């Protein structure tokens, strides 16, 4: 809305401030975070045991006739669990809460675009979790397993593809959050979103093990670009790295447009109803 009133520098400072607020809010929940980390290690271990029990031999066939070893599959599942954990902290940025109690009017009065506020608020939540993950990663590798990237290029591609993956997670989360303007209810919706997104992201099972129709469906949804795509690049199972990352970027743009469209309508709705 009135974002144009600020200089670029002022705006960046505002974004950083919004993220910081969320970071400090999150550290209050430190002990919760520790427990959810234990939960993560626990799931990593469990998934490993399930894969060990499921694998009949040391190799299994992927959907497209490729082979994937047990140890590679375990590495996938460990990496996916950790990455999903970082990108999807339980406490989202509290938009629904703020819509319900009317605080959103304050948010809207700030001279920074509402969508930007939401996005950077969520980024803050995730950044707050990073130190815990750095501590947890060695344990996760110990409990589960790890493999080096397929090649130096794959490693670099993985690092680069995490950026659009992160943005897509933020954008889909915000899109679900913004529906609170209409439903005034989000407990239910956000749980459904999380569960569906987790599954289609490949956080539990890689797309290559899904039955054909499910794999097709998953590959047409944005969620796979958040977890499955970066790891597939890492393991050298993705085809052309450049075009895969390009596709991720297309998703970023599409989702951003959808979010803007919804945000404009949500604001109009608030304006009409007087918040």
């Amino acid at each position: 809305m009135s974002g144009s009133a600020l200089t670029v520098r002022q705006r960046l400072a505002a974004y950083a401030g919004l993220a910081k607020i969320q970071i400090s809010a999150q550290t209050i929940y430190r002990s919760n975070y520790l427990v959810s980390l234990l939960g993560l290690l626990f799931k990593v271990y469990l998934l490993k045991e399930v894969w060990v029990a499921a694998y009949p031999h040391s190799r299994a066939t992927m959907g497209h006739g490729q082979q994937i070893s047990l140890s590679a599959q375990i590495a996938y599942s460990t990496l996916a669990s950790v990455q999903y954990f970082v990108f999807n902290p339980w406490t989202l940025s509290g938009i629904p809460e703020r819509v319900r109690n009317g605080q959103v009017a304050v948010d809207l009065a700030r001279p920074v675009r509402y969508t930007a506020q939401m996005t950077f608020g969520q980024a803050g939540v995730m950044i707050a979790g990073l130190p815990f993950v750095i501590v947890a990663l060695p344990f996760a590798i110990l409990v589960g397993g790890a493999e080096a990237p397929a090649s130096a290029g794959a490693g670099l591609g993985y690092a680069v593809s995490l950026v659009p993956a992160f943005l897509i997670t933020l954008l889909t989360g915000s899109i679900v959050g913004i529906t609170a303007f209409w439903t005034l209810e989000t407990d239910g919706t956000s749980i459904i979103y999380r569960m569906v997104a987790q599954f289609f992201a490949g956080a539990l099972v890689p797309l290559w093990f899904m039955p054909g129709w499910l794999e097709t469906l998953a590959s047409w949804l944005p969620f796979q670009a958040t977890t499955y795509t970066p790891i597939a690049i890492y393991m050298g199972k993705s085809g052309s790295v450049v075009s895969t990352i390009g596709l991720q970027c297309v998703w970023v743009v599409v989702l951003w447009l959808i979010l803007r469209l919804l945000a404009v309508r949500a604001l109009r709705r608030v304006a009409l109803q007087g918040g």
Partner: protein
Amino acid sequence: MTTEPRDFGREPAGRLIPWWRSYLVLLGAAWRSQFQYRANLFIMILSGVAWQGVGFAFIWVVVAKFGTIGGWSLSEIAFIYGIRLTAHGLFVVVSGRIFVLDTVIQEGEFDRYLVRPAGALAQLWNRQFYLPHLGDLLSGLVILIAAATEIPADWNVLTVGFLLLAVLSGGMIEGALQVIAASFAFRTMNTRQIRGMMDDIFSNFGGYPITIFPIAIRLILTFVIPLAFVAFFPSAVLTGRSGGLYVPEWLALMSPLAGPLLVLLAREVWRSQLKHYKSSGS
């Protein structure tokens, strides 16, 4: 119009009613409270289904790919999962949203449950009826019934009866363990995370053939946190596997007794800890 003043005399108007009747009265109140908010019933229940369903979707994809896990077919694993989830659904539907228990106790809200002629736990459980829990129960029943018709079990009065008792007992096991953990909140301990962990263990480990895990984990899940009795042992009995387990066969056959026994234990623990309730200094 003026009403007559009343003389209450020496006899109070109230009397004690059986625990199940007060439970139903309180449940009715919680249920009506829930509908004061026009929450979307469908979405709330669906969120329960989604929460539980995604775990099953994982198993389903893996087993569909590999045929079996640890010698159990898809329908057999679904059967374990269905028993576990139905038992869980039964427990959460009757117990409401109790993860807030610690705050209820710390902030002295629990006081009000002690000055009414009804069980404190029944009042606590009916503090709020949480609609998504219906989704847990619903998905459990769907998976259980679908799987029961698929597995090569011989369904007769005896086996169906065993299944029903096992499901009830499974709900009691989870409930009893949750209540035991919760009891320690009366000693101003923070029990929320312990209870959360337990819930995690139940929902993450509970639906698998426990024999796929290393022996140490198996023993823990049998004798420390008696999860094996919830769904795995009953499934092993009903699919004719109870002979070759890591425990004597009679133990698996007795699993419907585990719930009632633990409930008795939980009752004692709850009562003994309730004495330590401190209310809150205002």
